């Protein structure tokens, strides 16, 4: 069985974790939730850093934990990146990398050079941990986790302790990781933006329970997602750069069922992009508006309507060809337009965020 099966029941004073899930063994799975939702505890249970009294964990058919089995952390073939880099301060960056490599008992699939190259830390190897910036430290920590050739990479909010600039510095490396290594990654995050950029699969958690789980694009397209996303409700589309309008500095992103014009960020025609469309940037009209500043007008069909968190707002799920968008509208507008499932409408998309 090529999957990760996890069942944990943790009952601490004031904290409950009760999960039973099957996680994919490939790609990046985001464990997403607000703080206190239990996502870090779930990750620590999978790593063996926390021992749930009642638990079951199998990784690709190997039992790591059940009623009679307990495989300690140091015998699990995993890499772990903590929220703070947690480098050993008495060692240099290279010493930190070698610490793990020396203790690898399985096959070396990721070489030291490869890890160093992937994270761009070649020039930092001689430095002690306290001579590195926050972003550099986290890159070394990620390289250290990769260099043990893990069969499973666990990342606990690796960017949360960093400011926006450092985040931007590391995100491209994480995206390369995603593209170049075939290691399944469990990525804990409370940032919808990181999840939208990096994840293939989404596990949403709330109050110690898993409330939604599925492929990222499908799961984000649900309007009944039982987790508060606030302003971050929106969908992710896999797109290809179809055309670049150099005169107006725009690029056309083609996705299944339509295309969207966005600011040209320099990506070559034909390159794959992930595009994020937030519900608050989508509005609906019954008639095609011609005199409008909005550049993206897509024919669509309403497939479902649901309440949003605020009583005055509704979320409308619309089908654009094979893809789904979500629009956030005032309920009064829903009533005025007499929107109902099956209705043909025009979607106006104001802003599109490119993620890759």
């Amino acid at each position, binding site marked *: 069985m090529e999957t990760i099966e996890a069942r944990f029941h943790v009952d601490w004073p004031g904290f409950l974790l009760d999960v039973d899930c099957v996680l994919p063994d490939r790609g990046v799975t985001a464990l997403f939730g607000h703080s206190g939702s239990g996502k870090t505890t779930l990750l620590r249970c999978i790593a063996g850093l926390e021992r749930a009294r009642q638990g079951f964990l199998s990784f690709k058919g190997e039992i790591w934990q059940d009623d009679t089995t307990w495989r300690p952390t*140091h015998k699990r073939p995993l890499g772990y990146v903590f929220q703070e880099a947690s480098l050993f301060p008495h060692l240099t960056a290279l010493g930190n990398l070698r610490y793990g490599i020396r*203790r690898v*008992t399985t096959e070396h699939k990721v070489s030291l050079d490869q890890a160093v190259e992937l994270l761009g830390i070649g020039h930092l190897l001689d430095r002690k941990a306290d001579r590195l910036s926050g972003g550099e430290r986290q890159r070394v920590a990620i390289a250290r986790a990769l260099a043990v050739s893990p069969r499973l990479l666990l990342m606990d909010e690796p960017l949360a302790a960093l400011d926006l600039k450092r985040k931007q510095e590391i995100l491209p490396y994480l995206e390369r990781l995603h593209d170049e290594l075939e290691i399944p990654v469990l990525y804990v995050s409370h940032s919808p933006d990181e999840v939208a950029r990096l994840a293939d699969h989404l596990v949403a958690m709330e109050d110690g329970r898993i409330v939604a789980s599925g492929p990222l694009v499908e799961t984000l397209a649900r309007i009944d997602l039982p987790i508060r996303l606030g302003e971050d409700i929106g969908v992710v589309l896999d797109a290809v750069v179809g055309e670049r309008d150099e005169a107006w500095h725009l690029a056309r992103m083609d996705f299944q069922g339509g295309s969207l014009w966005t600011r040209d960020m320099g990506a070559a025609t034909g390159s794959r992009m992930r595009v994020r469309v937030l519900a608050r940037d989508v509005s609906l009209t019954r008639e095609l508006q011609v005199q409008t500043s909005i550049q993206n007008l897509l024919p669509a069909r309403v497939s479902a309507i649901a309440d949003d968190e605020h009583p005055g707002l509704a979320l409308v799920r619309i089908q654009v060809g094979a893809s789904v968008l979500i629009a956030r509208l005032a309920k009064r507008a829903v009533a005025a337009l007499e929107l109902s499932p099956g209705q043909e409408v025009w979607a106006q998309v104001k802003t599109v965020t490119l993620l890759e």
Partner: protein
Amino acid sequence: MLLLGSDMQAIWLTVKLASIVTVILLLVGTPIAWWLVRSCSWWKGPIGAVVALPLVLPPSVLGFYMLLAMGPDGPIGHLTRTLGVGPLPFTFGGLVIASVFYSLPFMVQPLQNAFEAIGDRPLEAAATLGASPLDAFFSVVLPLARPGFLTAGVLTFAHTVGEFGVVLMIGGNLPGITRVVSVQIYDHVEALEYGQAHRLAAVMLIFAFLVLLALYAWRPDAKKG
């Protein structure tokens, strides 16, 4: 020569005693300190209190109980008799054992602080990198706790050099066997040899100052502030 032969003998004996006690306590105190930091056992409190007892107990009280324990009817006395070792009171061996108990908190407490300061995270990181707990102790905890070991070693050594009450109770005052510097000074004063007492006391004073100076100057985090 400013110091008498007997003074030199007392200094040598003191250094020997303090060195042996420090080495023994490094070996014994380290696991105790580690256990006190890592354990969740109910025994943690009582054991911690017992370890700290010599800090507040008059040395003569400790010495008195040690004397009873090492005596022919005491538990240690029974043990030594069964093992075929002679009685411990008034021997160098007895002095070493008593000093180990007396200086125990001076080894354990700095180590305990050092281990606590390291926290869980480096151990967790080591585990995720494939290090067993024992491996992690030697490869991560020991290097990180080095300043703590330095402090603990120096304090233990210095404290053993300075003991008096326990020595008198257990060791008595046998030249070359149990007569350490502090006792020798006492003897000089008793005999009204103030000059000799002065010189030996000055040696001790300078020693104590140098030890503390070293301790404060070597503290690695002192520079960073």
